[in-house]
């Protein structure tokens, strides 16, 4: 896989996870988390945007004008969880850990622009990791959270290239033998179409318009 493809995957993941995190707006379990999730979502959309800007002249067109089938996002970010907080936090925790691994790789890119952007993203993610860790500590003994981590583990593996999966396995003390286990990219989950439709409906209503 070339770097461009790798970047597009990350951008699409960030765009869609930002969308999912925004679904908690106004209805999070506590107001403080509403505000925190909004910050995380803004960072994610910002990361997606910065990557799209590297990949194309028109970042908005790249973000919004593809057919649903042409997005490179992974099943983990496509799943709809509201109002399930346990799964929502499990996803945040798993995603941040996996993302840290792939961002570390990007930081070593031969392209200075890419390496530089990866370093910036990494620094912004520090807050996300702290937030995820805080919740992981709080929910660790809660059965529904542990079940959610279990359920989403294959999806977390599916986020990463095969080379990075063992590291994720070590991090969580789990098997990462992934040939049969991982929920791979390439097949969008059922929730995806509805998301794509809602995400693009205004833009599609007046094609080519400036908003």
């Amino acid at each position, binding site marked *: 896989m070339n770097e461009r493809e790798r970047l597009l995957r990350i951008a699409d993941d960030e765009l869609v996870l930002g969308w999912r995190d925004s679904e908690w707006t106004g209805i999070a379990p506590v107001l*403080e988390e509403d505000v925190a999730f909004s910050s995380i979502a803004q960072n994610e959309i910002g990361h997606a945007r910065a990557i799209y800007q590297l990949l194309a002249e028109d970042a908005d067109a790249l973000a919004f004008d593809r057919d649903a089938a042409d997005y490179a996002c992974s099943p983990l970010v496509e799943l709809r969880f509201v109002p399930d907080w346990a799964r929502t936090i499990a996803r945040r925790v798993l995603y941040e850990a996996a993302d840290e691994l792939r961002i570390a790789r990007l930081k070593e890119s031969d392209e200075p622009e890419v390496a530089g952007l990866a370093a910036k993203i990494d620094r912004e993610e520090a807050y996300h990791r702290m937030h995820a860790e805080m919740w992981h*500590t709080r929910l660790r003994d809660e059965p529904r959270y542990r079940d959610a981590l279990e359920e989403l583990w294959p999806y977390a593996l599916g986020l990463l290239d095969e080379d990075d999966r063992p590291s994720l396995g070590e991090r969580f003390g789990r098997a990462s033998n992934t040939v049969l286990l991982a929920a791979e990219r390439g097949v969008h989950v059922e929730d995806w179409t509805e998301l794509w439709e809602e995400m693009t409906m205004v833009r599609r209503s007046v094609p080519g318009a400036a908003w």
Partner: protein
Amino acid sequence: MIYEVFRRERRGQPFEHAGSVAAPDVAFAHAYAHEQYGRRGESVALWVVPRDAIHGVEDFVDELGKNYHRVDGYSLKAKLKEARERAGTAAPDR
């Protein structure tokens, strides 16, 4: 728990009371204060302090008029005028 939040707007400025956040522990208070008082880049630093840790001091008493502590306790104008006249350096009245 309620945590009081103090913010420093810019380097060189003192910390000033900004408000309060409700949080179960200091980790959450950190995150939540970060959001409420820093998401628009309006602070360079914050302190979060449990409300219980704050001890108020309001028992200020001045029963006998300690005017030597205040500017209005010193009236130099009349004396200065007289001293200038004596030295012959008084300016004409404007």
